[in-house]
C-alpha cells in the first residue's frame, strides 16, 4: 500500500483500491464460513474513536476488527468528559501514550483525521470527517458494485440526493473516477456543490434521464435539517422531483441496481418497495462493509504495507 493511513480517496492509487476490493472478496468468503474468525491481527490494538454518533459504521468496524482477532476499544465523545476541539489534542496524546496500533476515527470536522496524524504515530483510518470524505464507505460501495457487475471501468453510476453535505458522495466520486467509472450527480441545485465540474462528473437535475442513463443508483440520505437552511422547500417537493419510488422506476424498462449507504429515510429519498426489492443491494452493502473494512485493516496493519510514507 502506498499510503500508511487511509484518510481519503483523493489521489489514492487504483492498484491499492483494487487490492482492497480483491482482499474484501476473500474475507467475504470467511464471513460465510461457520467459524468467521481469522487470526490475522492477533495482538494488534485498534481504537474506534467516535466524536459523532454512528452506530452502523462503528459496529461494522468493530465486527471487522473482531473477525480479524484484533483487540478493540471503543471511545466515543458522548460517553466521556470530552467536548469539542480544545481537548482533541489531549485525546490524541492519551491514545498515543497507550501504544495502540491504529485509530478509526469519525469526526464532524473536515480534515480532523489529517490533524490527528500530527499527534499520533498509529495508523489512522478515516471513518468519516464531516462533509469531507468517508473512504471506507466508498470502498464498500465499490466492492458491492464490482461484485454485482464484475467490473468498475466504464460503469455508469448516478449519485442522487444531497451531494454538498455528503462525505459519501465525495469519496465515491474520487474512488470511482480512479477506477474508471462514469458518474452523474443528481439532486436539487442547492445541494450540488459549486465548482463540481472540477470533480470530473456530470450533473443532471432530471432524475428520469439519469435513471435511463445509469447502471446503478447510489441514493443518499436527505436530512430534514436541510429544510431549515432554505436549501429545500419541502419533503413533498423533494419526493416529486428526486424520490426513487416504485412508480418512477416502473416507467423505465431497465435493469437497475439500487444502493443506499444508510440510514434510510424510507418514504423520503427512497420507497420501501424499492429498498426491499431484488434490485436493491443495500443489505449486501452492509455485509460487504464488514468484509471491506477487514480488508482495509488487514492491508494497513497486517504487515503487507511496504512502509509507504504518508
Amino acid at each position: 500500500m502506498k499510503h500508511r493511513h487511509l484518510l481519503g480517496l483523493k489521489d489514492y492509487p487504483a492498484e491499492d483500491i483494487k487490492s482492497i476490493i480483491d482482499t474484501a472478496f476473500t474475507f467475504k468468503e470467511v464471513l460465510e464460513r461457520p467459524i468467521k474468525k481469522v487470526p490475522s491481527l492477533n495482538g494488534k490494538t485498534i481504537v474506534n474513536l467516535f466524536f459523532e454518533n454512528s452506530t452502523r459504521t462503528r459496529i461494522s468496524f468493530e465486527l471487522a476488527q473482531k473477525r480479524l482477532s484484533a483487540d478493540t476499544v471503543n471511545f466515543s465523545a458522548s460517553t466521556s468528559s470530552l467536548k469539542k476541539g480544545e481537548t482533541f489534542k489531549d485525546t490524541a496524546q492519551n491514545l498515543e501514550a497507550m501504544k495502540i496500533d491504529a485509530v478509526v476515527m469519525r469526526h464532524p470536522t473536515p480534515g480532523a483525521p489529517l490533524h490527528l496524524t500530527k499527534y499520533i504515530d498509529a495508523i489512522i483510518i478515516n471513518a468519516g470527517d464531516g462533509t469531507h470524505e468517508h473512504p471506507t464507505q466508498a470502498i464498500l460501495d465499490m466492492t458491492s458494485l464490482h461484485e454485482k457487475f464484475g467490473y468498475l471501468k466504464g460503469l455508469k453510476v448516478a449519485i442522487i440526493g444531497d451531494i454538498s453535505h455528503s462525505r459519501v458522495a465525495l469519496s465515491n466520486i474520487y474512488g470511482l473516477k480512479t477506477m474508471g467509472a462514469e458518474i452523474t450527480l443528481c439532486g436539487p441545485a442547492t445541494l450540488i456543490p459549486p465548482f463540481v465540474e472540477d470533480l470530473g462528473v456530470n450533473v443532471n437535475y432530471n432524475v428520469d434521464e439519469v435513471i435511463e442513463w445509469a447502471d446503478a443508483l447510489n441514493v443518499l440520505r436527505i436530512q430534514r435539517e436541510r429544510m431549515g437552511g432554505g436549501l429545500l422547500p419541502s419533503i413533498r417537493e423533494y419526493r416529486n422531483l428526486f424520490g426513487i419510488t416504485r412508480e418512477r422506476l416502473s416507467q423505465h424498462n431497465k435493469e437497475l441496481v439500487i444502493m443506499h449507504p444508510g440510514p434510510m429515510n424510507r418514504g423520503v429519498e427512497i420507497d420501501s418497495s424499492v429498498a426491499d426489492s431484488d434490485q436493491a443491494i443495500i443489505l449486501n452493502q452492509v455485509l460487504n462493509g464488514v468484509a471491506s473494512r477487514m480488508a482495509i485493516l488487514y492491508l494497513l496493519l497486517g504487515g503487507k504495507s511496504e512502509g509507504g510514507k504518508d
Partner: protein
Amino acid sequence: MDFSKLKKQVILKGGKILDPIENTIKKSDLVLEDGKIKALGKFNSNKSAHLIDCKGLIITHGFCDLHAHFREPGREDKETLESGSMAALAGGFTRVCVMPNTNPPIDSPEVIRYIVDRSEECPIYIHPIGAITKGQEGNELTEMGTMLSEGAVAFSDDGLPVTNSAIMRNALEYGTMFDIPIINHAEDLCLKQDAVMHEGKVSTHLGLPSSPDLTESNMVHRDLSLTDLTGGRLHVPHVSSSKSLDHIRIAKRKNDKVTAEVTPHHLFFTDNDLQKFDTNLKVAPPIRTTSDQKALIKALKDGTLDCIATDHAPHTIEEKEGTFDLAPFGMIGLESCFGAVNKVLVKENNLDQLDLIQMLTTRPRKIMGFNDNLLDIGVNAELTIIDPNEEWIFSRADIQSKSYNSPFIGQNMYGRVKYTICKDHISVI
C-alpha cells in the same frame, strides 16, 4: 531580537537612504543624536559615537501599520500593547493603529484614553481606532468627536461588519465633520453563514463550509455607494477579492476619499494552501484564489490599493490547534510582513522597491494624517533599516508576539528588517 537604548551619538554608516517622500535612494550616512536625526552626509566615525555598519542596507521611514489587533484590554494572554510593540519592532514597524475589538471594546473616550496612556510606556507609537458603534453591536454610534480628542485616529467595528446600512450611512455622514476614515470589515454575514474558507474549486474538494467572493464585494460596493451619497471617507480594509477591486477601481476614479489596504497573507497565499487544513490559514476575509491574488498585486501597482496592512491577529495555540471549524479567524503578521511582501511584490512581480516602501510608510501614514517627514533634521528618529536581498526562512524564533499563529513559519522570505529605531531605542533583529 536585541532591544536597547540608543547611545548618545549613533552613526549609520555606508548605507543608502530611501526617502519615500522625495522618491529618492541615495548613498549617505546618517547621524543620530539624543534619539533625533542630527545630520545626513558623509561622516567619519569618532570614538564616542556608536557606529552601525549599514553597508548593503537601506535606511528608510519606520513602517506604519493601519490594522493590528493587540488584544488589550481583555485578552492579554494573546497579546498586550507591549508584546505587540515588540512584534512591530521585529517587523520594522514604528507606528501601529490598533483595532477596537477588545474586551471591553474601544468604544468610549475613556478606553481611548486608556490605550493612549498605556502606549506612552510602549516602545512604538500606538494609535487607537475607535469602534463605530457602542459595544460593536451595530446599533448606536459611539462618541466619535470626544474619542477623537482623546486620541482616536479612525473608526471601525473590525472583526464585525456594520451590517445595518443606515448605521453605516450615519457613521460616514457623521465622520465628514472630522474628515477621518471609516473602516468597515466587509463581510455579508448572511451570505457567509458558517463559512470558514473561500468558495471555489478547493473548498469543493475539502468539504469545508465556504462562501463566495461576493460576501465581501457586495458589502464593499454598498460602502462605496454610501461614501458617494454622504461625502464621507471610507478606508476598505484587507481587500481580498478581485470583484471588490473592480468596485474600488471605479469608485476611485471620481472619489478621492476612498482608500484601501491589502494584507501580506492575501498576497502570499492562495486557497490551494488550505489543502493541509492548517488552521493558521483560517482568516476573515478568507484566502482566495490564484486569480484573486494576481488581481491584488495588479491593484497595488495601478493604485487601486493604497497600502499594505498586516491585520496582525494573535490567537492562542490552544485555540488554533483544535479542528478547523473551531479555530478562530486570524493570523499574526507583523514580523513576517516585509520578507513576505518584498518577496511577492519586488522579487517575483517587479514592483519598484521604492513603491513598496511607500506602501508601508508614507501611504498608510497619509491615510491617518501622519504627515511628518521622518528624515527631517531634528525629528525623533523613527527609522527602519532593511537588507533588501537577504534570503531567509521565517521561523518561530523570529516571532516576538505572545502568540505564534503564523502560516509563514517555514516559508522562504526575501528581504529582511535588520534594525528598527524608535523612541530613542534600537532593536537589532
